[in-house]
Every structure is written in C-alpha cells, then in structure tokens.
C-alpha cells in the first residue's frame, strides 16, 4: 500500500532550444558535428547540491529534419565534459535516436519516460546530470529538448 504522496518533492528540469548549424552558433551550449553514435557534445547539465534519488526521468525532443542524417539526444549522469565517448567511458540512461528521411522535410517528435520504483538511481551531490547530443552532419537542424526528473532527496546519504 502506498504510504506517502509527498516524497516526490525534489524535481529538476533542463529545457533548451538549439540549432545544429555550421554557420550559426548554437543558442545555448556548444554543439559539434560528430561521428555518431559514439561521440557526443554537451548541451546542458545540472548540479544538485545534495544526494538525490531519481524515481522517474523523462526526455523529449522535437526537431526538423531533411536529408538522411542521424542524431541522438541522450541523458548521461556523472560527467559534464564538453565531449564524451558513449560506450567506452560513459553509458547513457535514456536515448532518443533519430534518422533522417529522404525527399522529405518534416517535423519529428520523440519522448520517453522511465520510472524506477524499487531501484531508484542514486546521484551523488554535485554529480552532473547532463544532456548530450551527437549528430553526424552540420545541417540547419533546429531542435528543442526537455529533460525532467522526478525524485527525492536521499536522506540515507545525508
């Protein structure tokens, strides 16, 4: 039986827009043309000043696309380095993978949510929770991304 309705009181979000474009600087954080899927550029991060338990994480993105490119929006915990290599030093927790179409310009949306009930993700104090994006080409790719975390302060660690 659920014993409490007020424990999910420690929630955090990152929401930003950017443009992956060779000629226009990204609007918020640096984005680079990178070989995917292994390399990824930091696009935003948060630092929480206490130990934290993630009960649910949600990642959403919307972008325009045209030619056949591939990109990946990912949630990574434990680093805010400008560039990382996924699969060697770091694993991701949540991904939105996207390929491009052909002869077709459209808008795409993706979202995914993961809820950990019995095994929350423990994040130590000041351990970065970051959004990385990799893209195999620099095209005029407008994108909006939102990451939302629902959780609670880790009182055991405190």
């Amino acid at each position: 039986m659920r014993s409490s309705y007020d424990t999910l009181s420690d929630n955090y979000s990152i929401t930003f827009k950017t443009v992956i474009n060779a000629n226009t600087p990204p609007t918020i954080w640096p984005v680079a043309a990178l070989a995917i899927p292994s390399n990824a550029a930091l696009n935003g991060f948060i630092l929480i000043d206490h130990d934290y338990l993630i009960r649910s994480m949600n990642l959403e993105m919307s972008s325009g696309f045209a030619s056949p490119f591939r990109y990946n929006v990912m949630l990574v915990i434990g680093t805010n380095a400008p560039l990382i290599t996924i699969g060697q030093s770091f694993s991701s927790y949540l991904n939105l993978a996207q390929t491009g179409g052909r002869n077709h310009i459209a808008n795409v949306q993706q979202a995914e949510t993961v809820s950990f009930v019995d095994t929350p993700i423990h994040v130590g104090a000041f351990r970065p929770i970051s959004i990385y994006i990799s893209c195999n080409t620099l095209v005029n790719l407008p994108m909006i991304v939102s990451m939302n975390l629902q959780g609670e302060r880790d009182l055991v660690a405190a």
Partner: protein
Amino acid sequence: MGSSRQDLTPYTLSFDGVGTAINAVFPAAKLLTTFKLDRALGIVGFQMASSMTVAQAAAQMALFMVVGSSDANINLGQTSNIFAAHLANVNNSGGLVTPANQSTVVIFQDSGIKLPPGNPVSLYGCAANNATEIMFAVLNLYTILIK
C-alpha cells in the same frame, strides 16, 4: 515507495549503419553489436530506442534485443530470448520517406533477470543490402550487481 537504495548502473550498446552493413533479410538477422558481462548482473530494466529509414522497394527493417546469443547470424524463427523488437515496413511508393522512430521501456519492478558472467546481450538487425536503408539504435541496460 520502494525502499531499496542499491545503485543502478547502465550499460549502453549502440549501432549506426546502413543496409549494406546489415544485409540480412527477415527472418534472417545479423549481429549488430554485443557485449559480454564480466560479472554477474541483474537486469532491472532496459530502454531500446531506434530510428529506421526504409527505402521504397527495399526490404523491411527490424531490430531485436536478444539475450544469450552472440552468433554472427541467427534465424529469428528459431530464436528465443528476444526481449524487444522494433519493426519498420517498406514505405509507400510516393517517393517521400519518413523514418520510423520507436522506443521501448521495460522495467521489472519486484524482480529482474539474472545474467551470469559471459552471457551476451546483443542487438540483431534486418535490412536489405541497400545503402539507402538507415538504422540508428541504442540499448540502455539498467543493471544492479548481484551475488
């Protein structure tokens, strides 16, 4: 609320390629990427995300998460331990090709899957030998250490 506070560790597998690198028409499937555990782990859940651009007049594309096999080629009709599948059919004949994006999340709440050391977790794919077919896939395994 659950009371467990055991740390959760993700493992990530990914694949980025075109049909010429896959070249296996359903129900045949080709190994895309795999890893073998060096310790006993419990899988408490996973997320598999994929996007596939299927060319007109090519073949269906498919992605499978398989536990317990790392053979280079398998026949899906004879394979068990498929944990998740993403399927994309051939596009219409209009010439406009829109990618198929999919994401699957499975969380085993009160239990999990015990993976002994050396047991592979793999991604298998199907696609025609066609460079215009594009697949991008990521698998995140959520694991805990078990004894």
